[in-house]
């Protein structure tokens, strides 16, 4: 694992950090309402669409969330999550603009193009890519249950009641689904060991 980079953000009002760590829908909506408009304005001013702005903003929130999960958010400055989200989203959009398909686009706000500072260290980006690959391996049945348990943090009884099945069945299905993921990961690591 590479060197861990700590990101300094103001956590004097730590509710949004706790909200991120707990996957709280209200915290996610709060971030969206408060900080998306600036990103949208920037992307629209630079040849993008609202949909483009949403894509890069979502990537930025995911990177912020991953940093919160990894314990990389530390206290210290007056900067809130807005500055971080804007920088990451802006850099993501600049990457798109620089890509071959968008050579014709004109960037009017490029004051920080040359200082494309990485707020998303490579290991975070790699981890996100790897985790997305893992999630892809789950079938819809497993996603339905695991999402509710691990992401929405519902208890087994609530999930069981919502799906009209017994609590013990949900517990067993959850275990089976996680063992499928484990078997997939074990197979991958075995192949990598043989290759090296």
């Amino acid at each position, binding site marked *: 694992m590479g060197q861990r980079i700590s990101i300094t953000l103001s956590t004097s009002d730590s509710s949004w950090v706790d909200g991120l760590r707990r996957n709280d*829908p209200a915290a996610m909506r709060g971030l*969206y309402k408060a900080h998306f408009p600036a990103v949208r304005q920037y992307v629209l001013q630079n040849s993008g669409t609202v949909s483009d702005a949403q894509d890069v903003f979502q990537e930025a929130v995911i990177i912020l969330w991953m940093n919160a999960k990894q314990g990389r958010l530390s206290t210290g400055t007056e900067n809130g999550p807005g500055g971080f989200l804007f920088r990451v989203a802006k850099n993501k959009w600049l990457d798109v603009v620089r890509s071959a398909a968008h050579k014709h686009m004109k960037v009017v706000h490029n004051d920080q193009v040359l200082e494309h500072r990485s707020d998303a260290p490579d290991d975070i980006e790699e981890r996100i890519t790897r985790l997305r690959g*893992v999630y892809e391996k789950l079938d819809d049945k497993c996603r339905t249950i695991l999402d509710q348990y691990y992401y929405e943090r519902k208890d087994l009884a609530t999930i069981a009641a919502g799906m009209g099945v017994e609590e*013990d069945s949900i517990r*067993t299905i959850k*275990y089976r689904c996680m063992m499928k*993921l484990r078997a997939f990961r074990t197979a991958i690591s075995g192949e990598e060991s043989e290759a090296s």
Partner: protein
Amino acid sequence: MIHGTLDRPTFEAIEAYVLERMTPEERTAFEQRLAGDASLRAEVELERENIEAVELGGLSRMLMGIAQEERDEERMAVNWPRVLKYAAMVAAIVTGAIWWMVRTPLNERLYAEHFTPDPGLPVTMGITDDPAFADAMVAYKLGDLAEARTKWEPLLASAPTNDTLRYYIASAWLGEKNTAKAVPLLSTVANEPGSAFRDRARWYLFLAHVRDGDINAARALEMDSDPVHADRARIILEQLRD
């Protein structure tokens, strides 16, 4: 290096540790185990990542949902007054209800009113000695009826006298609204006096005949003797007679 299987108690202990659901005492004891067990440490890291993968999937889904809500709000604010949209929805529901009442034959309405799918058997660790059956039951309970059926059918081919398989394959067919396939299977179970599924098979067979409009066949089942469904069967037959 991770290898072999991971038993459920260990999986759940790791899960409780990763999700920070252990008491301080449990946590201390678990960390002492971790300190001296490299393979357990590897399992913890793997499970932590797998849980994070699920959370990332959930987060992506939620963010897409929020983005969609934003787009919908903008669209409604510009193009379509909210009141008119709700009025259109109510009108559509009322129209649909009227259409349902007028166009749907009585026997099909009665079937829809009384049919409740069999909830399936609990999928507990106690039946994992038959994982193929359990996997199909998981699919059934989650509403993937065709998948459940296609997993059960080979099992029935190798054990044609198994009343559980016949009953649940028929239940899957019924859920798929295919009474032609369900009726023969239900009939065999309904005619087995010793089957634990006999009474339920008779009730679903009765409902299938009602749906098919075969009232004589439904009446021939003589549901008056049914310990659970006699009253409902009588009401259905009376309504059909009226």
